[in-house]
């Protein structure tokens, strides 16, 4: 096993790099070596994860949704490790278990080693997804697995091993969770936990449904009652308290499969969006003072509960980004095939409009059955493009619909700079022709070469490690934020980068996409600009600082308190 740096060493490394930036990434391979764009690099990566959904032909409802994945640095060695969430056994399934989620250590050069057993973090919950945030603020990122049955919280001991602290943390809840996220909603310096529950389902509640000519099919979610969501307040001592009711998260009519926290109304705190399957989405506006958890339901007023025509959709993954350069956050939500994905454009004041059709997203996604989704600047031209991971629920879908396949190709939509999207051409890479039963998507620079690679999780299929290859015309800037308190990854911080007179905005946001955890380092495309003139950080507790100018082409570690104070 490799020697792991201590937390102090990691922090020292961060201080040393300061605002000056880490060394430039290793030279990229020549452009003429193999295909460019997104390229499947799984075969040589050492990642051999295969998702088990427990299918036996009974068509258990739970089989279809899993599972997600995560990219995070569990050993503080400066590179991204991988976590893949496992499903599990169901009655009638023949494949022998046990089945556990898996942790892969990054050995560099896009090679990974399965360290699950040694790390002791093999979660056994029939998983939907994972969170990889540091819940106790000790500088080591932990693992929270959620799905069908009791969720599991693994505390990172900092020595390469984890301890299951679920019971000690007080996180007793065995409902069917479809989504979760960490966010410091009350701005008290630690991360609270939101868990969005899906439906009331268990093997005992299984129902048999049919979709002719298929004799058996998965039941529609409407067959099952919705399950209420839960908000856990971090008490700062490793324990959590259920504050759902007192925080005002009182709706019980949602079937959550996606969630993401963002300051959609630009008032300095994190609001909460919940994507619900075939029920109205929720937007909870954070109205709490610092130290207080209080939310108001503005789903209807924000026009974010339904699609453009006022209908519910089969919502799954979601992500926020500023797609049109107006410095507010817009939202994408992936949906069922034939529904098209939704693109809620923020019109200010937390009012949204689903503009998927006029902005090209509907046409490009209507045939896709979407799950994982991220905004990312694929071409480093300074605007966020859109990547979705697709895959149908039903292995036998072609028996009743020739337009669909179980395995579907990912789709990359390129932003024209004004928030209008069109499908990428060959520059997207061979991955965009490679079909899989996609579910989760995590984005991060897995090989440290200054671009964004992918981890894709699937249903009853193998996981994919995807490398971004080839030259990229635009420059990039990577920013790793280090907060002073327990939220040392500064989850919830907002960053404005100004380069060549243009300002782009991002937030540090771990949980996004579907059931997946993202790299916390922010990645900005700068187009032709060789540097950012200024970086303005609004830290999670509200403090603002300016940094820069910062050179493009490298990662800069920004320590809270080391910049120039800003109003």
């Amino acid at each position, binding site marked *: 096993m490799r020697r792991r740096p201590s937390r102090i060493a990691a922090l020292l490394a961060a201080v040393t790099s300061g605002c000056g930036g880490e060394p430039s990434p290793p030279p990229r391979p020549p452009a003429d070596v193999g295909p460019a764009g997104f390229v499947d690099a799984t075969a040589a990566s050492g990642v051999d994860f295969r998702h088990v959904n427990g299918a036996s032909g009974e068509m258990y409802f739970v089989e279809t949704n899993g599972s997600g994945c995560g990219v995070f640095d569990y050993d503080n060695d400066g590179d991204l490790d991988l976590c893949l969430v496992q499903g599990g056994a169901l009655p009638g399934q023949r494949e022998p278990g046990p089945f556990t989620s898996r942790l892969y250590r990054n050995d560099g050069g896009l090679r990974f080693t399965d360290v699950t057993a040694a790390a002791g973090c093999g979660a056994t919950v029939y998983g939907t997804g994972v969170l990889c945030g540091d819940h106790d603020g000790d500088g080591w990122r932990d693992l929270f697995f959620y799905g069908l049955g009791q969720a599991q919280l693994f505390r990172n001991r900092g020595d390469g091993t984890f301890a299951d602290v679920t019971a000690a943390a007080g996180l007793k809840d065995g409902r069917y969770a479809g989504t979760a996220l960490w966010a410091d909603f009350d701005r008290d310096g630690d991360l609270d936990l939101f868990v969005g529950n899906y439906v009331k389902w268990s093997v005992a509640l299984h129902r048999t449904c049919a*979709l002719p000519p298929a004799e058996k099919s998965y039941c*529609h979610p409407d067959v099952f009652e919705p399950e209420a969501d839960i908000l856990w307040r971090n008490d700062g001592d490793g324990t959590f308290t259920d504050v759902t009711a007192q925080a005002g998260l009182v709706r019980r009519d949602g079937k959550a499969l996606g969630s993401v926290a963002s300051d959609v109304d630009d008032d300095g705190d994190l609001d909460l969006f919940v994507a619900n399957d075939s029920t109205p989405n929720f937007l909870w506006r954070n109205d709490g003072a610092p130290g207080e958890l209080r939310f108001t339901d503005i789903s*209807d007023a924000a026009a974010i509960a339904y699609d453009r*025509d006022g209908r519910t959709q089969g919502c799954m993954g979601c992500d926020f980004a500023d797609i049109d350069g107006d410095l507010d956050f817009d939202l994408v939500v992936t949906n069922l095939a034939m*529904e098209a994905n939704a693109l809620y454009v923020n019109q200010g004041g937390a009012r949204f409009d689903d503009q998927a059709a006029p902005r090209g997203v509907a046409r490009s996604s209507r045939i896709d059955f979407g799950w994982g989704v991220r905004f990312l600047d694929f071409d480093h031209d300074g605007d966020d493009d859109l990547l979705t991971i697709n895959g149908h629920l039903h292995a036998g879908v072609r028996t009743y619909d020739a337009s669909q396949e179980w395995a579907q190709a990912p789709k990359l939509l390129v932003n024209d700079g004004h928030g209008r999207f069109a499908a990428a051409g060959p520059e997207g890479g061979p991955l965009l022709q490679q079909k899989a039963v996609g579910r989760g998507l995590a984005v991060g620079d897995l090989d440290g070469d200054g671009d964004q690679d992918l981890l894709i999780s699937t249903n009853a299929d193998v996981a994919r490690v995807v490398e971004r290859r080839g030259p990229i015309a635009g420059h990039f800037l990577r920013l790793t934020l280090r907060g002073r308190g327990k939220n040392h990854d500064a989850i919830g911080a907002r960053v404005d980068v100004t380069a060549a007179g243009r300002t782009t905005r991002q937030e540090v946001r771990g949980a996004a996409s579907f059931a997946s955890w993202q790299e916390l380092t922010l990645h900005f495309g700068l187009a032709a600009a060789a540097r950012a003139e200024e970086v303005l950080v609004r830290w999670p507790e509200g403090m603002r600082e300016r940094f820069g100018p910062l050179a493009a082409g490298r990662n800069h570690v920004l320590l809270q308190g080391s910049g120039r104070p800003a109003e």
Partner: protein
Amino acid sequence: MRFRQRLAPRRPLSVWLARAAGALPVAVHLAVIGALSCAGCDRSPTPPPGGAVTTGASPLTPAPGASQPPVGDPVLAAAELARGCERFTAGDLPAARVAFTAATTADPACAAAFAWLGRSLVVSSQGMSFSRAIESLERARALDPGLVEAHLDLALARFGLVEYEAARRHFTAYLAAAGADAAPARRAAAHQHLAILARLDGDHATARAELDHAAALAPGDPDLPYERGLTEEEAGDTAAALTAYATALDLERNHLPSHFRRARLLRSLGRSGEAQQAERIHRALQSLFDDSTGRDLKDPRQRAEAWGEIAALDPLNRKARFEQGRALLELDRAAEAALVLDALVRDHPDYVDAHVFGIDLALRRRDRADAVRRVQALRVALPAATREQLPAEMRPLWDSP
């Protein structure tokens, strides 16, 4: 058309993916049946109207050498076709599809059977069936290139699969071939879709013109002013959009998408009170008519609550009050149902459905005298009413002294 399709009979909730078909950008209303013959399986190809569908690279061009499948059983096929048409008209799409499929099996040369099967898949509220619809419709075209109506169904299926250029060609060619004799609702549907395609291209002027054509053909269709509202919103004319949504709601008081868009616009204008009211109505309607899941089959308690809320917010909404009464009756709360109903008849004496419901209610209570009294009330309120407007079992009451 989009909204009204949701009022069509639905499959049970257990049908996974049923919602997908409900999400058509613009779906096909059952009323848009058009002039496709149900008469039988005549093997002579239909002559192309006006000779319009004959030449060139148009998608309507007949396949080279119409295929000559083996001789089947035209009599059986005709019977199945007739049965399918009867089920289709009654809104029982699954049964219609079974019959149409049987017709195609019985006589693989029956173009009308394939055309009807394709149409039943296009308007289906079940599953994602456009690809199957296209297969069937293309077969119909190959058998009978003169089946102009099949071309519109094909266009709608292509539209559903976002094959917009092919859809546009088919819509345009359909309008050219169909002529003035074609069903106005069908031609309106073609214009409506061309308007949507123009709007997607950012061509608001063409979109408006196409919607004007459509509205002239189908002036009672609330989806047309709704599409106009979307067009005006995209063009930045909020006032015109609000007017368009109001027009849609005048035509159909429970037009869900118009309530939704109107609420958004009212919010943006700071008219919060009106916006909230529209939002509440939308939310209640949405709980009743989810586009995909057949929630119109919800239990009567939920329906009574939702319709009751709508009726309270919009007292002029007679359908809401009517449906509230019906749901109360299903809950065996006949006395409350009667109260709702009596008030409805008092406020809307010309509302035949309410009178009929009242008569039914009296009969259920075995109160024949009240039933007769209600029949008389109907006669007084609507002197032009005829006994044929009553269900058959009530007609003897009409003749009572």
